[in-house]
């Protein structure tokens, strides 16, 4: 019973970060139609920003959200209006655009990953953060896990409210549903796509900041994050934000259970097997349209 509770809580903490990663990717794919391979690199970038700022100045890592998020949002936004907009212009149709966009995002992945690696090395980095235990229902849980879970949940809720309540959020959902109809009704579709790509980066930055509080990371861990995010997005349904949140928590709990009972090395392999079954049984994902 204790083990079960431990898996549930730690899994949720891990899952909440996964949910953030997947939400970002899902927003980028759902609206801007870019399967962003470099997603994980922006997570790592934000993590390193947090690491450097926190260890040099001693600022609370959470405050680093205010530094990392706008920065990564700006980078992503600029990437979209400079590169991806041009890719869209030279691609004859959406299918070709999706292919070309993946290739361009590889290029960005190469560049960002290598720049981080050559400036920070490839050793794992971490710093001590809320290292004391916190007792819930008879089991000890790292306080940092609970903290991360709460912050991630707040961000998830805030993003959902943003999508459903604000005017910008509504135009994003409209653009996701039907870009042509949305642009006929006065949604500036290129602007919305750029903003969505930026928001994807922003969510990646949130995930990156929160990861530093929980686990060690290195300049080469980005591709692993991207893979996990992609798997979750497929599980939840391509382009569905609710699906990404649900999928994030499912994979978080499943991942923690696998780490406990089998081996943490086996985690991504197990995720992959889940996806294989899913693609055979229900390819559109849990919440897919």
């Amino acid at each position: 019973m204790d083990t079960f509770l431990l898996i549930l809580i730690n899994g949720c903490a891990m899952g909440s970060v996964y949910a953030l990663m997947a939400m970002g990717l899902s927003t980028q794919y759902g609206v801007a139609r870019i399967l962003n391979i470099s997603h994980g690199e922006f997570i790592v970038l934000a993590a390193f920003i947090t690491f450097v700022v926190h260890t040099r100045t001693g600022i609370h890592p959470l405050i680093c959200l205010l530094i990392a998020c706008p920065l990564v949002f700006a980078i992503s936004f600029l990437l979209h209006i400079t590169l991806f907009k041009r890719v869209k212009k030279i691609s004859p149709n959406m299918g070709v655009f999706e292919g070309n966009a993946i290739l361009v995002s590889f290029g960005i992945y190469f560049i960002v990953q290598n720049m981080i690696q050559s400036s920070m090395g490839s050793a794992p980095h971490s710093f001590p953060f809320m290292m004391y235990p916190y007792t819930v229902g008879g089991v000890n849980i790292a306080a940092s896990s609970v903290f991360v879970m709460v912050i991630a949940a707040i961000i998830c809720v805030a993003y959902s409210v943003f999508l459903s309540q604000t005017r910008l959020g509504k135009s994003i959902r409209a653009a996701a549903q039907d870009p042509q109809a949305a642009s006929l009704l006065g949604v500036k579709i290129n602007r919305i796509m750029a903003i969505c790509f930026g928001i994807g980066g922003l969510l990646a930055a949130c995930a990156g900041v929160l990861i530093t509080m929980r686990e060690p990371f290195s300049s080469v861990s980005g591709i692993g994050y991207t893979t996990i995010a992609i798997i979750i997005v497929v599980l939840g349904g391509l382009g569905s934000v609710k699906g990404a949140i649900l999928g994030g928590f499912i994979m978080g709990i499943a991942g923690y259970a696998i780490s406990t009972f089998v081996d943490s090395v086996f985690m991504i392999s197990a995720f992959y097997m889940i996806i294989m079954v899913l693609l055979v049984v229900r390819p559109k994902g849990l919440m897919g349209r």
Partner: protein
Amino acid sequence: MELVKKVFWETKAAKIQALAILAAFVFMMFIPSFSGAYPPLFLAWVMTYCTLSISWTFFSGKTGYISLATAAFYGLGMYLQAVIGREFPLGVTILLAALLAFGVGFGIGLITLRLRGIYFTIFTFGLALFLNRFFHWYEGVFTRTKGRFVKTFDNDMVFYAVLIVFIVTLVAILLMNKSRFGLSLTCIGQNEDSAQHIGVNTTLTKVLAFAISAAPAGAVGAAMISTVGYVDPDLAFRMLASFFPVLMAIFGGMFSTYGPIVGAVIFYVLQDYLLRTTNLYMVIFGTVMVVVVLVLPKGIFGLIDSMIAKKQRGYSGEVIGDV
């Protein structure tokens, strides 16, 4: 037989092509006899990259389904060599590796290629990482080792093996391009619905083509790892190896058969040089990739093609396009 005649005999260009391949093959056969020890190894690596990029282009360039599974097949070939290499001669291992890659490719194709769109790319993207972690776990739990030693072969022997794999792949692809099978693939890439309407079994064609394109990657993996002498999951299943063929094919131009070869040769020589001189080589490759997609969507070969066409006809002829 008719097909062979059509591709290598009927027109003047076909004869030149056949002669050129034959001449290159014969010339390469004699290289180890007059060169030192290093050139065969260097050329073997170049041909490995060429094989990876032409086999990648055979499926992905034609159909537009971007495969990122190359590293997985390449690595499976390496591991097969490590496991059974001691019991069999090199040629048999290479054949078995090709068969293994074919089988795994077929299975993956059956799962993912029934679906259209992005699922295939997504699934193949993480395949190398999946196998990497799986082998880490397997070795950690069952064999309690990390990595294995591989039986080493003479560099010249590996050179001949890779040369044969490369030439066989190239000839097979040239033949298939003109066959009903290759034309159905091109048709799927241009318009999958139309392909279905004119009676192409799209799923079977895609799955089979993907499996065929996987086989050479397994074969060269099995051959090349015996020059290294050691294999572990991180070496065999590097995700970067999946991106290389894509980069080479785009760089050279993936709409022709020879574009990826040109791309692979330039890529390997450049990589060899940059690895020795700078540690920013991935930044350079990333930049090249972005620039090529944006500026040269048809690659170097496409650029040369359109320049020749411009000279001959006085305008920039659009060779490839939707029919």
